[in-house]
């Protein structure tokens, strides 16, 4: 029995396309958890990273926070939050957000810090306010790097959101956890294939966004 065989059997089985455990249902659940976690992480990481990058202060503190957050084991955090808070969306979201904040925070900080200072000075010389310098000059030029931080975070979330199934949540992790206990490898491999496919789709979305959102001038320079 090889992996491809499992994949074929999983997607060929009509039972996986209907009812509560149907593939579209699980994919939608997984997508929702991931989007929610990414949105919260971006809402925390982006403003802090961009503003500290703009003023060039607090880089050491940021690096420290990021290392500490990275050191937290996602799976352990999930089980711990579950034992403390009980069943709910919050115990699932906390580890995912803790996982996604460091790459967003660190890359957006670095992206702003590593900009060529002359256009920024020129913008100031033209009388732009600090907020406008950040939003209209620094952010567009730093966008490719900022997006790469978001992309890393998104891929990690998509892959890690599978652990939500361990505490009774849905999503694609259901196939993997249930398959493990039922010794149904076809299900496990099918679930993993769906997750990998979703991560690929995430990469594709970010590629499309960067094509669309990054100014052509910046792209040529980078």
């Amino acid at each position, binding site marked *: 029995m090889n*992996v491809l065989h499992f994949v074929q059997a999983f997607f060929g089985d009509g039972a996986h396309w209907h009812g509560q455990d149907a593939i579209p249902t699980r994919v939608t659940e997984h997508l929702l958890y991931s989007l929610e976690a990414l949105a919260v992480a971006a809402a925390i990481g982006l403003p802090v990273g961009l503003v500290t990058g703009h003023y060039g202060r607090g*880089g*050491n503190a940021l*690096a420290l926070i990021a*290392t*500490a957050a*990275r*050191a*937290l*084991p*996602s*799976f*352990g*955090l999930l*089980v*711990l939050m579950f*034992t*403390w808070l009980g069943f709910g969306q919050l115990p699932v979201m906390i580890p995912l957000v803790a996982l996604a904040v460091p790459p967003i925070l660190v890359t957006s900080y670095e992206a702003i810090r590593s900009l060529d200072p002359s256009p920024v000075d020129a913008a100031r010389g033209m009388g732009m306010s600090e907020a406008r310098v950040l939003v209209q000059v620094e952010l567009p030029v730093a966008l490719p790097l900022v997006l790469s931080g978001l992309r890393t975070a998104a*891929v990690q979330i*998509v*892959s*890690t959101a*599978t*652990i939500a199934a*361990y505490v009774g949540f849905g999503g694609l*992790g259901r196939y*993997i*956890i249930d*398959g*493990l206990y039922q010794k149904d*490898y076809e299900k*496990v*491999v099918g*679930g*993993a294939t769906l*997750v*990998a496919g*979703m*991560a*690929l789709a995430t*990469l594709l979305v970010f590629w499309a966004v960067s094509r669309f959102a990054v100014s052509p001038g910046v792209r040529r320079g980078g």
Partner: protein
Amino acid sequence: MSGFFDIPSDLQHSYSGLIGLHLREALIPVLAGLLVSLPLAQLCVRFRWLYPPVFGVTTVLYAIPSLAFFVVLIDYTGMTETTVMIPLAVYSLVVLVPAIVDGVRSVPPETLAAATAMGLGPVRRYLQVQLPIAVPAIIAGLRVATVSSISLVSVGMLIGNQGALGNLLNDAQIYHRPELAVNSVVTTAVLAILVDALLVLVRLLLTPWMPRKGVTR
């Protein structure tokens, strides 16, 4: 906090035993990943066309959840430490290969020209000039890979108690002792931070020419 370090006997390890096991399961894969990624990255630097496909394949492998990885491997390696370590080694490649490629590529062409002019062949130039200059970037990659490897070992709990400190999570639920879960998370995080600090120290020792102040990453 009573019973914090009281490890249930079904784990067959003392507290320090679990820590040793955890470090072994986390660090050997990163070391293996480094040994594979050094030549792989060198090939990517040498042949530019090779980099995008290598990067793509490692990213897709990275997206496979560790748990699914474990389950597929059980057929071949059983419910053993090896099963936990193989995915971790694969994951470390995703961070290490780009870090080494970027580091080696960032060596200024003048430096390379100077090395060539001094009569260094390609091998010695790589070992004595390019690699040392790339050390900060390589260590930065190693730090990310090591920390995430340490935090991922816990998932091994799900395949027959191979998660070292993560096994405490299971016992926390069986025996209704949440403090064991706290112990697991805190010890894992502290281990990760200590190993990370150790790598920073190694960087400082390996790069005496770098300015000491203001180097953060």
